[in-house]
């Protein structure tokens, strides 16, 4: 394990974490404010990735593709809330789980019908596929660095939006007591729709940034959804700050575990079985982390003040 590899993986972990945060930020507000178990948030990631990939192919310009894709994800979230979700707020958690599970099946299959079952390739423009020297002698892919920067900018944006604006104040008020907030004259219906649309937007952006790094395919959202649920639970439902810290932790643990565990396992196992078991054990670590946190702090690390 060289220092170069370690640093590179630390950056990768940070990048994974910040992407997770973009997905988790909206979801933690949906879970927190509306007490709504929304499993189809992964589909919003997929919609973002597909919108960006197909618009890039259409316009032959990566940046234009992204710019046009963002409003699409916004309206996807808005429409979904208007058509389906708003009818389910008063139902219990299990019914919400089922209905949004149905949404996942629908979206995955709809994408499969529309775009085919094969993965879509979204190539990076030449201007982004180079390398940057983060330290002398240590090159790092330009695009990943850009993802970190954009993700960080979004995180700052979300922070300012939630803690410094009037909208954010009503969102926080809604999270701690929806009925009282409504009684004070805030239009909760509109607030919910807006949170949904903005959350979908950030999830979509995460999908757009993941597109060139991984593959754009039906069902790409579910592993991300489960991971971002883990992030939300570790951070405390409804807490954006908690989601940020938990996302970085989860991203780091997942990425570092994937690299380090096979190395550690190899010291007392055969190489072949160590390489096979390593990634799966690394995936396990995230859930072990979550279970440990919940056992000691049943409402997460940073539960919002109530």
């Amino acid at each position, binding site marked *: 394990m060289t220092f170069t590899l370690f640093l590179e993986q630390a950056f990768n972990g940070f990048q994974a974490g910040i992407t997770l945060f973009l997905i988790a930020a909206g979801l933690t507000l949906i879970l927190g404010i509306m007490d709504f178990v929304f499993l189809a948030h992964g589909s919003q990631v997929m919609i973002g990735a597909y919108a960006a990939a197909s618009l890039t192919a259409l316009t032959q310009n990566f940046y234009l593709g992204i710019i046009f894709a963002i409003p699409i994800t916004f309206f996807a979230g808005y429409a979904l809330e208007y058509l389906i979700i708003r009818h389910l707020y008063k139902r219990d958690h299990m019914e919400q789980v089922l209905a949004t599970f149905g949404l996942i*099946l629908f979206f995955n299959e709809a994408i499969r019908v529309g775009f085919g079952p094969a993965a879509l390739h979204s190539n990076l423009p030449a201007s982004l596929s180079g390398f940057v020297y983060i330290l002398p002698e240590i090159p790092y892919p330009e695009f990943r660095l850009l993802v970190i920067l954009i993700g960080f900018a979004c995180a700052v944006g979300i922070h300012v939006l939630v803690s410094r604006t009037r909208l954010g104040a009503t969102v926080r008020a809604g999270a701690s007591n929806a009925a009282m907030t409504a009684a004070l004259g805030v239009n909760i219906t509109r607030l919910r729709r807006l949170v949904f649309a903005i959350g979908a937007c950030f999830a979509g952006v995460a999908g757009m940034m993941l597109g060139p790094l991984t593959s754009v395919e039906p069902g790409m959202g579910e592993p991300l959804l489960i991971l971002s649920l883990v992030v939300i639970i570790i951070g405390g439902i409804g807490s954006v700050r908690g989601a940020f810290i938990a996302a970085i932790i989860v991203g780091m643990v997942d990425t570092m575990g994937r690299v380090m565990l096979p190395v550690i396992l190899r010291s007392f196992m055969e190489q072949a079985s160590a390489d096979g078991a390593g990634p799966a054990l690394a995936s396990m670590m995230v859930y072990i982390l979550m279970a440990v946190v919940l056992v000691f702090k049943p409402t997460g690390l940073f539960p919002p003040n109530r």
Partner: protein
Amino acid sequence: MTRFFSLIGRGLLQHRAMMYLLVGFALFPLYTGFADLPFWNDVAIRIMLLGMASMGLNLVLGYSGMVSFGHAAFFGIGAYCVGISSYYDIFNGWIHIGFSLVTCGLMGVIIGLLSLRTSGIYFIMITLAFAQMLFFGFVSLETFGGDDGMSIDRAEFGLIDLYEPLRLYFLVWAALVIVSLLLMFIVHSRFGVTLRAIKSNESRVEAMGLTPLKFKITAYVISAMICGLAGTLFASWQEYVSPDIMHWTRSGELMIIIILGGLGTLAGPLLGAIAFLLLEEFLPELIQAIAPDYAENWMIVFGPILIAIVMFGRGGLLGLLIKLFQRKGAS
């Protein structure tokens, strides 16, 4: 008073529904035998096993109000008990079942005790986390096939050769009858009544001097063991086990089956399993007839059906049947 009688009537009807279903499954091979449709015996076995697992989950979900999103894990543990036993050349089915009940019971105690520290959405998510943990745990076990799974031989039950046609069918049926009777007994015992009381108001039960946690953990362990039994038989029927058997979507599937049939009812999950698997069999054919190109995309119809069930179908299929029956009785 009328309310009291209608409650009793509904209870009786539920048991009658259960009885009809069990007798129906016992007679079903006669039909498939005459009509020469051996394939449908396999469908019926899958229905009975998924129904059994859902009945187990229903004890937690429907009767005690704990939304566990990770019961596929116990189904999978039960299945892997067969795989691991036969890897070490133990083919006796009774040992498989014992091994699975003990393992699932122990895992149920551990996972249950840790998970029940939380509640609400946190409970849903921590049960999911444990299921994912076990899923990736089995993926990492290269000895037992890892990601690809392992093929296994059907278990031996003394004189009963499971490779003879219908032997496995009636073994599964017998297990289903035993589980049904057990659940019928549990639901109507004082223990079952307390569970329902906990579901509707936990702090009141506590105020009456009972410890809800004790009841909840017992229910959790029983349901884990029932799911494990179903998984054990499932693995023996499928002759193959892989981590996919405990994928988180299966936990969702079990929940769908319960909601479809009727939450917190005895016969509901079994009815739901029939409806779910028939949908799975017939929906592709139906779509094939309407739009031949899209037969394999049947999920695009199935998803909205689920949403519609949640939105409009309260009480599930059993509720619907009861409503029909009562209207007939009234007129």
